[in-house]
């Protein structure tokens, strides 16, 4: 479904991503794990057009999407939940959801249905629907960020460290949501620092280190590989 080939990205003269090749198949959950500064966020930003690729190609469903600007990526069916949630703090929870459906703005009825669907997914958001998003707790903001990204009914969802700064209960809830998305036929790509938790819910995984893919394979196999943690993720992985 998504093919990234020989992708390189740099910030000025500093190379952030070097010759990365990876793919995500329809219906999978694919995890990208690796330590801080490995280039995980850079990879996602390059896919969704927030950063320019220096070299390489990105292909989605047989369309070349290299260089497509971020505001057109939703149109091809990819939705990106950015790192640190980035909800619109000055606007209400419901307005955040409405903005998530900006690309389908003409169908009022449809938008109302989608909002109700998201409130069912996260009842907490319904309780807080008129509150400014900036006043929510971190976990609630993450729920909102996920729901907002699902408002356009994307086929492919990309999440950047959804567990960041959350308590274990919220982390479990978000990861359960990813499994539900997979069950409903969506394809998921998730970047995580909680490597073990990400491996536990994903089908396949890529291990990124200093901008390069060091290892990839079935998540189950990677989980059983004792060397993985020590070599690439540092011994003290929290999970």
């Amino acid at each position, binding site marked *: 479904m998504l093919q990234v080939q020989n992708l390189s990205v740099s910030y000025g003269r500093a190379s952030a991503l070097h010759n990365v090749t990876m793919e995500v198949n329809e219906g999978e959950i694919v995890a990208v794990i690796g330590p801080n500064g490995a280039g995980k966020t850079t990879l996602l930003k390059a896919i969704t057009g927030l950063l320019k690729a220096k070299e390489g190609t990105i292909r989605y469903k047989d369309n070349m999407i290299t260089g497509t600007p971020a*505001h057109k990526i939703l149109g091809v069916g990819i939705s990106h939940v*950015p790192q640190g949630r980035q909800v*619109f703090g000055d606007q209400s929870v419901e307005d955040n959801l409405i903005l998530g459906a*900006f690309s389908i703005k003409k169908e009022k009825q449809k938008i109302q249905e989608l909002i109700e669907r998201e409130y069912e997914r996260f009842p907490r958001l319904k309780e807080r629907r008129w509150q400014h998003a900036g*006043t*929510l707790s*971190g976990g609630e*903001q993450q729920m909102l960020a996920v729901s907002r990204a699902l408002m*356009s009914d994307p086929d492919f969802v990309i999440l950047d460290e959804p567990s960041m700064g959350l308590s274990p209960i919220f982390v479990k809830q978000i990861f359960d949501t990813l499994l539900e998305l997979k069950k409903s036929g969506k394809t998921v790509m998730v970047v995580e620092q909680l490597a073990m938790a990400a491996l536990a819910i994903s089908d396949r995984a890529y291990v990124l280190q200093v901008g390069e893919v060091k290892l990839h394979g079935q998540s189950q196999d990677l989980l059983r590989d004792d060397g993985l943690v020590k070599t690439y993720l540092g011994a003290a992985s929290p999970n």
Partner: protein
Amino acid sequence: MDLTDVLKAIINGLVYGSVYAIIAQGYYITFITTKTMNFGQGDFVMLGSLIGLSTFTAITAAGMGVWIAFIASLLLVIVVVGISGWALEQVAIRPLRSWHSIGWILSTVAVAMIVRNVAMLIWGRDVLMAPSPFGRAILDLGILKIRYHEIFVLVGAAVIMLLLYVFLKKSLFGKALEAVAFNKDAASLMGINPRLMASIAFIIAGTLAGVGGVLVGPMVHPGAFIGLFLGLKAFAVAIIGGIENPRGIFIGGLLLGVSENLFALYSTSMKEAAAFFLILVILAVLPQGLFGKRVKEKF
């Protein structure tokens, strides 16, 4: 000085203040979406009042009614100054933004100078008389006499600001503008095009300047040089009210208008100092402006 003078000064202040507020909303709307603004906003006001004046005169000279003339001149001003706002963003702001510089300040001042000098070539150096669709008709309330045009300006400005406020807070488009202001990257991931939003913000700012010019024209004897003081006062209003708060700007505008007219009761030369006196006092006590935004982001 008696009570009538004070009352008259207050009414006058509210009329002028509401015009300052409309112009200042233009600073607000481009500032929240792009963190830039047009330092030549005042000269766009001047352009609006002179184009409005010429169109109005031409149409009434052709024998058509004053209201047809007024509406036609308003529409023409909205189109011309709105497009000027769009062009300004394309030419003077967009190319300079990626530099992380404040170059756009000087480039908008440069555009303002060009506009001012072109206006001088077309309309000359003298001040002109701008007729109002109400003529010089006066509402006589016994102790108080108000020109109908002033009432019209007061009501018109209030309606414009109400429409703008509803547009920004209730329409999807306004929500998208605000989203871009809050977080450009996150907004673009929603399918919102930040560049398009920047263009729209500058078109709205230009339109507000133009409409402000048409309204203020019959009250000030317009000429090529009026932009400087109108722009400066509107800027003062934006700072006083808190540049990110449209309601604050409205109240700030009225406050400045009233206080400068009250100052003028003592001495006309004090009138121009009122704006800066007010800024000094308010910023000394409330550095965010009267209604400045509190930071409430969560990490």
